């Protein structure tokens, strides 16, 4: 049976362009272009790569306003087989709970066997949507995937990058993984395929197609209340080990290890 691989992609503001207004101290978003969340391109690449070596077909799913169609087309121009835009007025204002709920419905409708998400989006930075999809579907999940080692009809084996090392795990399909940059090199967009993507229909799924009622999406379906936004304290404090020469540096390292 043909495996169905879904890459979830989001359109975000091009943050390299976002500037602070010095007068009001707020972000200037005017005229800022929308781009595909950079991490999601790694998900797209992996979905395509899997179809190249397996009996599989890839789909890019993007939830967002009409203009997010550009991101779907971009994924198709990289080589994704099918595009779906998940869009509805009723979805506006969805938090991570509602978004992952809507996406989970879409995944179900598609009949996906493996869902690949970027680790997080550069605008919200929550890293919750991938795991949220898995939770809503009650599927297996693995975050921070740095390598997809093997995939069969029944399971997928991946390597995860953790704070203190790497972990290889096998998940039963269907499953959700979220991926990091180390995973691959996203291929370039192909001009021919880009032209082709304008010929191919992109399905549009809204609340009706996904059978979602208004209480489960948009603002009313979003339990999150934002009290305060702040930068988290950095966790990994690196210490620079100093020394006059290699011998001294080695000694200093040895002392630290001895003290652990």
């Amino acid at each position, binding site marked *: 049976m043909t495996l169905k691989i879904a890459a979830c992609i989001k359109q975000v503001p091009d943050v390299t362009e976002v500037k602070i207004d010095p007068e009001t101290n707020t972000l200037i978003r005017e005229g800022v*272009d929308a781009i595909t969340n950079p991490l999601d*391109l790694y998900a797209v690449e992996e979905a395509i790569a899997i179809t190249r070596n397996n009996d599989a077909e890839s789909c890019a799913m993007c939830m967002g306003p009409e203009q997010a169609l550009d991101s779907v087309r971009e994924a198709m121009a990289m080589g994704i087989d099918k595009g779906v835009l998940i869009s509805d007025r009723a979805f506006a204002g969805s938090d991570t709970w509602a978004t992952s709920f809507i996406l989970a419905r879409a995944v179900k409708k598609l009949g996906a066997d493996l869902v690949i998400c970027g680790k997080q989006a550069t605008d919200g930075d929550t890293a919750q949507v991938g795991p949220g999809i898995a939770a809503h579907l009650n599927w297996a999940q693995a975050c921070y995937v740095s390598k997809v080692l093997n995939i069969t009809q029944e399971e997928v084996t991946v390597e995860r990058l953790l704070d203190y090392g790497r972990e290889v795990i096998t998940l039963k399909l269907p499953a959700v993984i979220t991926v990091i940059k180390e995973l691959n090199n996203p*291929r*370039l967009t*192909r*001009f021919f395929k880009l032209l082709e993507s304008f010929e191919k229909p992109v399905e549009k799924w809204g609340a009706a197609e996904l059978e979602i009622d208004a209480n489960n999406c948009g603002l009313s379906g979003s339990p999150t209340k934002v009290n305060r936004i702040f930068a988290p304290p950095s966790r990994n404090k690196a210490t620079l080990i100093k020394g006059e020469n290699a011998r001294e540096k080695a000694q200093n390292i040895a002392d630290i290890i001895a003290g652990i």
Partner: protein
Amino acid sequence: MYSEVTQSDIDYVKKIVGSENVFIAEEISEDFCRDELAGLKKSPEMLVDVSSAEEVSAIMKYAYERKIPVVPRGSGTGLVGGSVAIHGGIMLNLSGMNNIIELDEENLTLTVEPGVLLMELSKYVEERDLFYPPDPGEKSATIGGNISTNAGGMRAVKYGVTRDYVRGLEVVMPNGDIVELGSKVVKNSSGYSLKDLIIGGEGTLGIVTKAILKLLPLPKKAISLLIPFPTLEMAIETVPLIIKSKIIPTAIEYMVRDVILSSEEFLGKTFPDKSADAYLLLKFDGNSTEEIEAAYDKVAQICLGAGAYDVLISNTAEREESIWSARGAFLEAIKASTTEMDECDVVVPRNRIAEFVKFSDSLQDKYNIRIRSFGHAGDGNLHIYILKDDLDEEEWKKRLGQVFEAMYSKSKELGGKVSGEHGIGFAKIPYLKESMGEAGMQLLKSIKAAFDPLFILNPGKIC
């Protein structure tokens, strides 16, 4: 002819700059005995780290009286032996004069000391939404070196070369006089443009101790197209078509698979595509995505019409990095693939590039030697590398000479010039002579004599 450096000379210079800034004999690191041109090595008798125009002036005045040769030195990344002290004498290391003096946003100029590195300079201005367009591959070169070689780089197609961005210079003359040439002004018809003689003068006419550079607003967007072609010839023959279309990319580079593979190996990073034998790499910049898309759409159609397999679009920071860092490493990668190499940096009219590349390719078989090339296809400037591999010294010199002879005369026949951007220095003098002829060389020598009647500043270079 020239005086040798004596103990009293050393003592004198130490009084000017402090003894900790003067190095002699084995205190002089091997790095200062050569540049990036293989095969030319010679130590200066005295290496001096200078920190101001006044110091440079005092040393020049003294050297002029004593008739000691002086070589100005930036980062030593030159490729023609320009900053090698072939007559010994004093080497002035200007890389410590590396202050950014003034950003004048009302005149859009930046005033710097000569030792500021290109990478520091571009970072400084880009953080302020400004742009210094000249973009030679080696970012650790000094701006003084760039000015002195009139460095070019990849963005020359659209933005021109270093010369186009120098408004004014402070220069120490061979006799020690300090002169100001040009200024912040935009236009200048006030007599001979002496500033323009110093630019590209390779440190033979004066020492640059301060430069006023012209800046532009930083373009907000850039994307690149990587365009695979069945053959190098087809790729390069497309360049004049692009230029004729009146769309001006920022850069048009060409490359072949073999060089891409070398660079992958050298960097340990994969290149986004290597399915084809040859590629054009184009960059577009502008202020809106729409503007850039309109430009590249037209160029993409031209390339496809000319037989390109496809057009690959690079539109993210990560992709740009993976492509351009590979492009930036080509020279080093080719170097790492052989034992020794020499380079031909000719420039030909843009509609003759294909012919020249084909010709130089054919020399591989004719002289039985490995030749690799890549380059700035959009401005007609080619970088062709002749590789020694396992040839013995004698055979290498012989075949290299023959290949160079053939290439430079072909370039002349096509209306080309000896150097597009690396300069003449020591290595290319014979070819310059052939290209300029007797009258032209005489003119160069007269100019040299007007600036430096005793021929003490960087002697043995250019003419």
